Every structure is written in C-alpha cells, then in structure tokens.
C-alpha cells in the first residue's frame, strides 16, 4: 500500500503487488521520497501500480538521518492537509522542488521553512501579516503579537487583549512576510540565523498543530535524532 502525491490527480492511495519479493521489478522504484513515473490501473477500490520507473530518487537525502526526518516531515504535513484525489499542481511542484532542495542544499532549514509557509498559502491558510487581525490597522515596524486562532499578526494595542496571542519579534515577522511574497531564490538571499530558524519553527509547529488538532509524528523524531549526542 502506497501513498502517492501525483501531478494530475493529487494525493492517491495505490497498491503495488508483489513489492516485498526480492526480485520485484517495482520495489526499488517505490521507496519513500522518490519521484517516479507510474503506470496504474484502476482497481475496484484502489489504483494498482503496474509499472514504475524512477525520475529522481533524491539519493543524497537517503544518506542522512536528519534529512530523511525533514523529508518525512514535509510529506507528513502534505498528507495531513490534503484530501484524496484533490489535484493541485502548485503543491506538487512545491513538494518536488523542496525534496530537491533538501537533497542538494547544505542547510535543510531554509527549504523546510519556505515549504511550510508556501504550503499554508496554497492550502488557503495564509496567515495575515500586514494588517492587525483584530482592528485592521497596518502593522508597524515594531515587535508584535501573533494569534494562531485568529490566523495572523496583532498590533501591540490589540495583542494583550487576545487570550492565545503571543509575542513575536519584528524580525520573525519580517521573515514570514518575506517568504510569503518571494520566490525561493529571493528568500534564500536573506540569511536565516539559528535563533530565527528556531522561532519560525516553533511558531509554524504551533500553527500546524492548531489546524490539525493533533500532534505530528515527525517533529519528535527529528528532535530525537538531533539530540543524539546526549543520548548515549
């Protein structure tokens, strides 16, 4: 049983028969996080994979535990947020490019953060960052508040009145806005400091958990792998 995200028909479930046999001609092409060309037949309930050929196996990614964790993270987000057979070419392209970036770039944080923000936008959960979500006044260049349930930034006057609002630094807000409106090449020009990356990561995690109403599996895995020196 496979979960696929396809260009033409979005997320689908498919069955690949005989895949566990060592001589399977498909098995090697159907590993997780592989971009493939498939020939599928419609069965009664599921699609059945009849032929498979790899387009890009993202081989570097497979050699690093942490990168595997990140790849799993973006696919988990995608899986949780999308419905079966709801096609979206932009999401397909974003997924494909992000996997490529995690695979080739030295630092996986930037592509992952960019993916999070763009995914929210493509799904229709784009946070409002230019005007206060409570009073509508334009957000000024100062430290602000952010409310997850209201889906956006709050000005310093409204912020303290909203129960779930928390403070957000001007810098974090700037990066969020920058990623929201820029292409990846432009987004990559702004250097992402470790502190800022942590802030963005935490904010996004809270945002996703709020919408999904449950925790994600992969962040825990990533944390455990990251903390390995202490584990011994």
């Amino acid at each position, binding site marked *: 049983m496979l979960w696929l995200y396809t260009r033409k028909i979005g997320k689908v479930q498919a069955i690949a028969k005989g895949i566990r046999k*060592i*001589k399977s*001609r498909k098995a*090697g*092409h159907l*590993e*997780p*996080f592989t971009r493939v060309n498939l020939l599928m037949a419609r069965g009664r309930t599921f699609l059945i994979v009849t032929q498979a050929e*790899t387009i890009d*196996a993202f*081989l570097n990614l*497979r*050699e*690093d*535990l942490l990168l*595997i*964790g990140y790849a*799993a*993270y973006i*696919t*988990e987000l995608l899986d949780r947020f999308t419905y079966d057979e709801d096609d979206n070419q932009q999401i397909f392209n974003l997924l494909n490019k992000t996997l490529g970036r995690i695979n080739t770039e030295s630092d996986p944080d930037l592509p992952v953060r960019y993916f999070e923000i763009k995914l929210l936008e493509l799904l229709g959960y784009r946070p409002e960052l230019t005007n206060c979500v409570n009073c509508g006044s334009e957000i000024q260049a100062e430290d602000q508040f952010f409310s997850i349930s209201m889906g956006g930034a709050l000005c310093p006057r409204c912020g303290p009145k909203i129960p779930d609002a928390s403070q957000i630094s001007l810098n974090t807000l700037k990066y969020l806005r920058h990623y929201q409106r820029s292409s990846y090449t432009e987004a990559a020009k702004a250097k992402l400091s470790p502190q800022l990356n942590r802030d963005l990561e935490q904010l996004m995690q809270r945002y996703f958990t709020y919408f999904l109403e449950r925790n994600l*599996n*992969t962040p*825990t*895995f*990533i944390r*455990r*792998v990251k903390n*390995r020196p202490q*584990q*011994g």
Partner: protein
Amino acid sequence: MLLPAPIQDLINAFSQLPGIGPKSASRLTFYLLTAPDELSQDLAAALISLKTETTYCQTCFNITVTGQVQCEICSNSDRDQDVICVVEEPLDVLALERTDGFHGRYHVLQGALSPIEGIGPDDLKIRELLARVDSENIGEIILATNPSLEGDATAMYLRQQLTPSGVRITRLARGLPVGGDLEYADQHTLLRALAGRQEMGD
C-alpha cells in the same frame, strides 16, 4: 443480522488479520463450521499457546519458549560469541539461519526507525544493543536491517550510536538479485552494485 452471532464474531476476528478481507474471512469461518471438530480444537489450542508459551529472549529479543531466559542461539556456546548480526524482525533471523552462512549471534530490534509512522529510537531494542556491546566482548556488528529507507535510516542511526564504542561495524552488501533483470533495476541498486563490484575468479 443475517448470521448467528458466533459466526459473525469469528468472521470479524479473521478480518482483523493481515491480508484477509471479509470474503476470505467468511470462507475460513464456513470451512471451520463443516470441518472435523479436531481441526477447530487444534487451532484454538495453538492460538492460546502462541501467546502463553512464547516470550522474548532477554539477550537478543528474538522469540523463544516461555521459561527460558535465553533463546537457543544465544545459549549455544558453539556459536561465535564476538559477532552480532542486527536484524529488524524474528523472521529475518530465520531467513539468515536458513542460509547456514552465519554462525554468530543475533540482535532483533523489533522494527525499524520510521519518521513517517513516528517510530523513534526508543521504540526499538537499541538501548539493549548498546548495553550488549558495552558489557560483552564484541568484535563485529553486522547491520542486517532491510535495504529500504527505514532499514537504512536504522543502520545509519546505529552506526552513529556504535561508533564511540570502537567496535567494527559492517553492513550487508546490496546489489542485483539472482535471476534479476538489469533493465528493471533502480538507480540506487545499480549504483551500489557498480560500487561494490568484485574481481572475477576466486
């Protein structure tokens, strides 16, 4: 309800098993209904003893008979004591034993790391393996997890964890299967097969 409850219950129970859908479940149930009584009784007895008479070996975490602390392989002093072969499942031990090519001992992790399913290092018998390496005199660890993304991830994690102990760590080779077809091989397998090519002859 069309069927009497005992029949429906058994059908439901069978459908929980992997690879068995409602149709196969009904077929099995009706077969048992008409088959000799001994068959049902043997099956019931086997099912009960499956759970009550098996346990995990406290050394390698393979399955063994209840009452024994160690499995037959771990308690066999004729086997190499300084090589441990790390596998995911008890069935992998069986497969390796059938080859008759390995005479060391095993360590069964009872799964593989899977970020997608949320299976982390603490869900596997990894701590136990590290403890074994520390306390016993082990010369080599063979990582024989599956050649899949999850198996590879597990092997990578184990390598990181085991490196400080200075033990020799090896990984099963990968390449083309017997009777395979080069044309259908995926890049990853082919690349590994090329990288690991061997001098012909003896």
